[in-house]
């Protein structure tokens, strides 16, 4: 889906030229100059702290530079041909060591106090495990057994300047994290592959998502609304394309949402036992491929030479069904291919079938399909 240069040739290039000219001015924002005031008590406190140290720094700068600029104006060779002889003055030197020291303490004390408040790792009313993947976020609601992925939903054509960019360009996802207003929500942040970082400016939360570690952060948001954030640790090529969107709703709406998510999960479980045809699996698999696989293996199934292997014409994909399943379940040690065992049985069966049936693989290989039961059997081997 993302970054397929071939898309360029299919589109109207004169439209592109026009949009290149006008697009940046449609949303002119010369006033995006400062940190925005936060939406929680903590983020407000952080904003105040930021403004305090900012003005202290401005004051120091103004004092130092005005002495210097005065000297540059008043003590030129023309106006002051004979330089003064003074050097070293212990009183002055002690003063300019002690005074900055006191200013620093004045800054560090409130900062430490705020920090202590942020470092509260008590459990929340709601606990959500956040897992970073290349290049998407997974959210798992620990109390409710609800789990889903959140992917960038901005269209590729917007990124490649083929259509006008929407209001929330690069800040929109296919599924938002929903949390209730006024409740303490704790995030348990980790990663599956490389290091990511979960940043939500309005909550003043930025915590690195590190494989093998669980970092915590918490928030209480009173105002319902939609809050947007981003990944802030370089995590590979689509680092800039895995935004975060949190939707804060009233408790009642939240409960409804949780109920609906649970119903969805039950429906999905039913699908596992259904009789599948190849065409149905391929259709379902294509959309899963576009979300999970295309960034590396590409729409064409050709991969990227030297980094990401091609699936089109691959012996494993064409002829070795069992190994094919194993790779998706376990990943490939020492390579960028991770385990995708977090996908459902239906999703896994569909996406494997899609790769085995596409790009001429079915004709060249054995053409067998994989059904959800194959995945269930892999997970629970018969004794």
């Amino acid at each position, binding site marked *: 889906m993302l970054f397929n240069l071939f898309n360029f040739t299919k589109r109207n290039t004169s439209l592109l030229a026009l949009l290149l000219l006008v697009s940046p001015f449609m949303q002119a924002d010369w006033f995006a100059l400062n940190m925005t005031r936060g939406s929680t008590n903590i983020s407000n406190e952080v904003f105040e702290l930021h403004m305090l140290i900012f003005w202290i720094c401005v004051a120091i700068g103004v004092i130092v530079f005005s002495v210097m600029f005065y000297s540059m104006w008043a003590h030129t060779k023309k106006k002051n041909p004979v330089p003064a002889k003074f050097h070293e003055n212990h009183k002055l030197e002690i003063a300019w060591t002690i005074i900055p020291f006191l200013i620093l303490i004045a800054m560090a004390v409130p900062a430490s106090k705020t920090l202590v408040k942020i470092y509260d790792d008590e459990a929340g009313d709601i606990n959500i495990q956040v897992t970073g993947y290349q290049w998407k976020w997974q959210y798992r609601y620990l109390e409710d057994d609800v789990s889903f992925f959140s992917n960038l939903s901005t269209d590729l054509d917007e990124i490649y300047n083929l259509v006008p960019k929407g209001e929330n360009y690069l800040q929109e996802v296919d599924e938002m994290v929903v949390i209730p207003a006024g409740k303490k929500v704790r995030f348990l942040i980790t990663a599956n592959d490389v290091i990511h970082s979960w940043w939500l400016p309005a909550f003043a939360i930025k915590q690195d998502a590190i494989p093998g570690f669980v970092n915590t952060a918490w928030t209480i948001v009173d105002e319902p609304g939609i809050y947007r954030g981003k990944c802030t640790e370089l995590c590979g*090529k689509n680092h800039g394309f895995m935004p975060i969107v949190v939707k804060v709703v009233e408790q009642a709406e939240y409960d409804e949402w949780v109920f609906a998510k649970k119903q969805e999960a039950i429906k999905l479980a039913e699908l596992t036992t259904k009789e599948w045809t190849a065409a149905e699996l391929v259709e379902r698999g294509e959309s899963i491929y576009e979300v999970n696989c295309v960034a590396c293996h590409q729409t064409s199934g050709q991969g990227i*030479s030297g980094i990401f292997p091609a699936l089109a014409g691959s012996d494993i994909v064409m002829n070795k069904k069992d190994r094919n399943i194993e790779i998706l379940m376990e990943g490939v040690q020492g390579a960028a291919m991770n385990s995708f065992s977090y996908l459902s049985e239906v999703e896994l069966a569909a996406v494997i079938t899609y790769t085995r049936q596409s790009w001429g693989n079915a004709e060249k290989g054995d053409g067998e399909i994989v059904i959800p039961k194959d995945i269930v059997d892999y997970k629970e081997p018969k004794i």
Partner: protein
Amino acid sequence: MSAVIENHHDDHDHGPAKGITRWLYTTNHKDIGTLYLWFSFAMFLIGGAMAMIIRAELFQPGMQIVEPEFYNQMITLHGLIMIFGGVMPAFVGLANWLVPMMIGAPDMALPRMNNLSFWILPFAFFILLSSLFMEGGAPNFGWTFYAPLSTTYAPPSVTFFIFSVHIMGASSIMGAINVVVTIMNMRAPGVTLMKMPLFVWSWLITAYLLIAVMPVLAGAVTMMLMDIHFGTSFFNAAGGGDPVLFQHIFWFFGHPEVYIMILPAFGIVSHIIETFSRKQLFGYSSMVWAMLSIAILSFVVWAHHMFTVGLPLAAEIFFMWATMLIAVPTGVKVFNWVATMFRGSLTFETPMLFAVAFVVLFTIGGLSGLMLAIVPADFQYHDTYFVVAHFHYVLVPGAIFSIMAAVYYWIPKWSGNMYDERLGKLHFWLSFIGVNVTFFPQHFIGLAGMPRRYPDYALIFADWNMVSSIGAFLFGFSQLLFLFIVIKTVMGGKKATDQVWEGAKGLEWTVASPAPYHTFSTPPKVD
């Protein structure tokens, strides 16, 4: 300080060899200094070209010029080349030219090693740049190469990157040992430690920092090599390793590295401000102590680069306070420069313009650094363009302006010719405007919420990104003027006097201009 006593009895005295072998086999500190300086300038242009690609892509939202994959290779190589190929070799080149002349020594203490430490550098960068043409592309994990992105998930060229870093490290360590041995053993009689010029002091401290931390970097990349090829799991959580360990090791190298790139600048700027103020430096000994304190503190602040990795509260507070403490000796330096200028007799030739701009813009970078030390606020600043603005303010109008100031200041001594003052001032003003138009708006972009290392961004950041790119093009192309000025000066121009600058003090100004191939074969007498 007294004049040189020329020695006319030295039968072995000879000029430079002819042709290419002069440069290949040279053990002369001046030749090696020249090699280092030209090499660093070449790297500055290559790294700068990459910056132009980055800013061109960021000129507008959307992907226009490069793919994200290649963009990541550009930011990685830009950082590595500018740090290890641009700034560091330029300072080593200055040290080679100036340290022996400033302390009255005939050459560096270890001339053969000096030759080696330079000539392995081009190979290191050849290897690094060649990775652009390898299958899978060049390193794409940022100059900080955090594991596991740089190990399990790296392109195959990472092995060449590791080898290249090893060579750079070896070169730096050899260069640093040479500086330490020279300063400790070859000072002319009377040049006591507390009489050494500040540039020599700054390099002595820098050299110790290099010797302390370059092996740590070598250790980090070796552990990566083991993880990638020999089945270890230093940084692989799945094998019981620890990705955060990598960051601790890296920044234990990385933070002193930051001071390696700024301490020699402190030395240079102190000389230039003293000269063009025609007044003695306000506090020599406090300047020395400030540099020593900064160097020592640089070993206990590394984790301020890691406030968001989930450190325990006590660690966050310790590293916040320790980091803020650095503002005290840094402030002492800035106040000293201002006090030196105060009631001096100031003129503003090109080196002084660069030095004054250094003081102002480095201070701005220092103040934003102080803001970044405040942990709760850093949660908002970390890994945004605010950080990019901060470290470019200390590195471009900091380190790089000081190098340019040094070139304008000492090139009459090196070449025997004065540079063109009008062109020099033009170069300064273009660079000064360019640097501020480029990097000042990045404070806004960062505070408004744009993360660094993003090839594309939300529309709210569009306007200031465009301004920043325009500034970057101005700054980038102005540097071709610098190249022209340097070549013009080397080729000819108004002859320089031995003293060159009215207010200049120090042994290097007592020798002829251009400095003879061998200086101080017999040590000068210093009171």
